[in-house]
């Protein structure tokens, strides 16, 4: 394991400190926690809290700031934060208008955020939650845990954040977040594994000529392991899976995100995004905006995910609102 770190036990704390030290205009760290809150907590508005295990940077601390999240709670690497920390975040940003928790659909996240929610409610704070489950690589079934939350989560932060900034009520913000979740589908693939610092060895092994379609952002196995194919084919497979789950017709409008998982050069992301753009153009689907870069990573995993968010006028307008964060 070759990493620019000091000690595996301190990676999260030191990263959070580094973020706060680098961007004091935008965020600050709550003492003795791994919570980042935005510096401008003045105007009374619905507060947005998200978070999850670390190792997905810039998610979520990179999306704290005006127009997006009010706080992000960082757990240990790939480990949901604990209810006490989430509760602290809720209390730090609540301005009496209520707090929306944006949770990615993993048992650990859901349980810890729910526990925090119960604790906050016990203290008289108005709290609602939404659970993001955009990953179409997993079968959607009400009998099991449903789908994972991956890169599409960032669109939820952005749009719900923009509406909250405009003074909407907790109900309205929750509703739009749920609308975004319904309209957002993602799928990823990996060329290589990643190493949790405290573990020191890769979560899985991919032979030099194989890739995994549908890989999760914690290295959870995907749909299919197969021989490496071209970037165009990767893009086509991902897009066809998305289209199967959310059929898009000519003149539908979407926002697109081509997200790097950590170690994929931007050159490769744009080669993938080129094909995605072409496929959408061929289907006469209107692309409102395309986001290419690292939004929701898996440490140093090589690979990418593609996300489609189906837009209406309201969502498009909110997506375009300015936001002052590190990574939007």
């Amino acid at each position: 394991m070759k990493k620019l770190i000091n000690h595996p036990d301190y990676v999260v704390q030191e990263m959070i400190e580094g973020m706060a030290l680098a961007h004091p205009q935008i965020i600050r760290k709550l003492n003795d926690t791994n919570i980042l809150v935005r510096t401008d907590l003045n105007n009374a508005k619905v507060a947005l809290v998200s978070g999850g295990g670390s190792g997905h940077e810039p998610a979520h601390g990179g999306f704290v700031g005006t127009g997006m999240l009010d706080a992000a709670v960082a757990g240990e690497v790939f480990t949901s934060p604990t209810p006490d920390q989430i509760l602290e975040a809720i209390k730090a940003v609540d301005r009496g208008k209520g707090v929306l928790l944006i949770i990615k659909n993993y048992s650990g996240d859901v349980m810890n955020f729910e526990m925090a929610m119960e604790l906050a409610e016990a203290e008289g704070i108005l709290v609602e939650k939404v659970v993001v489950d955009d990953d179409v690589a997993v079968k959607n079934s009400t009998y099991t845990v449903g789908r994972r939350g991956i890169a599409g989560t960032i669109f939820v932060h952005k749009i719900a954040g923009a509406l909250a900034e405009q003074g909407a009520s907790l109900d309205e913000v929750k509703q739009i977040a749920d609308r975004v979740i319904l309209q957002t589908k993602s799928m990823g693939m990996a060329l290589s594994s990643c190493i949790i610092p405290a573990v020191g060895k890769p979560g899985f092994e991919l032979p030099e000529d194989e890739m995994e379609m549908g890989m999760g952002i914690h290295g959870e196995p995907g749909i299919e392991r197969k021989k490496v194919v071209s970037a165009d084919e990767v893009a086509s497979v991902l897009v066809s899976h998305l289209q199967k789950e959310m059929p898009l017709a000519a003149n539908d409008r979407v926002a697109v995100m081509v997200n790097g998982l950590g170690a994929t050069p931007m050159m490769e992301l744009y080669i993938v995004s080129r094909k995605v753009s072409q496929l959408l153009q061929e289907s006469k689907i209107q692309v409102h905006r395309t986001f290419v870069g690292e939004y929701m990573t898996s440490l140093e995993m090589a690979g990418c995910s593609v996300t489609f968010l189906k837009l209406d006028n309201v969502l498009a307008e909110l997506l375009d609102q300015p936001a002052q964060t590190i990574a939007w």
Partner: protein
Amino acid sequence: MKGASKVIQVEHVVKWIQLTHQKIVATKDKLTELDQAIGDGDHGINLARGLDAAIQNLSPDESKEDLGEVFQKIGMALIAKVGGASGALYGSAFVHMAKVCKGKKLISLAELAQVIEAGAMGIKARGRAEVGDKTMLDIWQPLADYLNEHIEKVSWEKVQQFLFEQMEKTKELVAKKGRAAFLESRSIGHLDPGAVSSTYLFIALCETLDRGE
């Protein structure tokens, strides 16, 4: 050896958790590997960290506290320091166990079975899992049932055997809850990491009580 304990007091619980901590630290890498296979690979690390916090939290002289308070302390430490699914679940289990022990300095073996049953309830309530979903519940609930049935003349060695059997059974199950559920049928053939760590937890209990005091 003075023969097996007939009652459970605070000192037993402290020993139990200390012994669990030792076992989890010793098997951290194994738990990690199990979690890498069908999860994300942090189970051993998280539990070791949380149990470390739990034993730090237990003052050397717990004699002034009752069982409810001690279980609560353990539960809160696990909730605050493990993280992930198992932190919430083990934490909820101990907090539920605390509730049924409130004010008690001592419980009988029959009561112990109910305490574990309460823990299983805590896990169920928090995780919305059923027996057979390939989770830690597949240790907790069967154990509670077994103890309820056999507590009259329990053999801690047989309990250990029972635990290992239950643990092995998780191999053949399809995960329906937790991260392994994303794998659907591909989760078959792997032990559930949480079931394995729960097995160690209760092996430590067996050893603590068997050794007696």
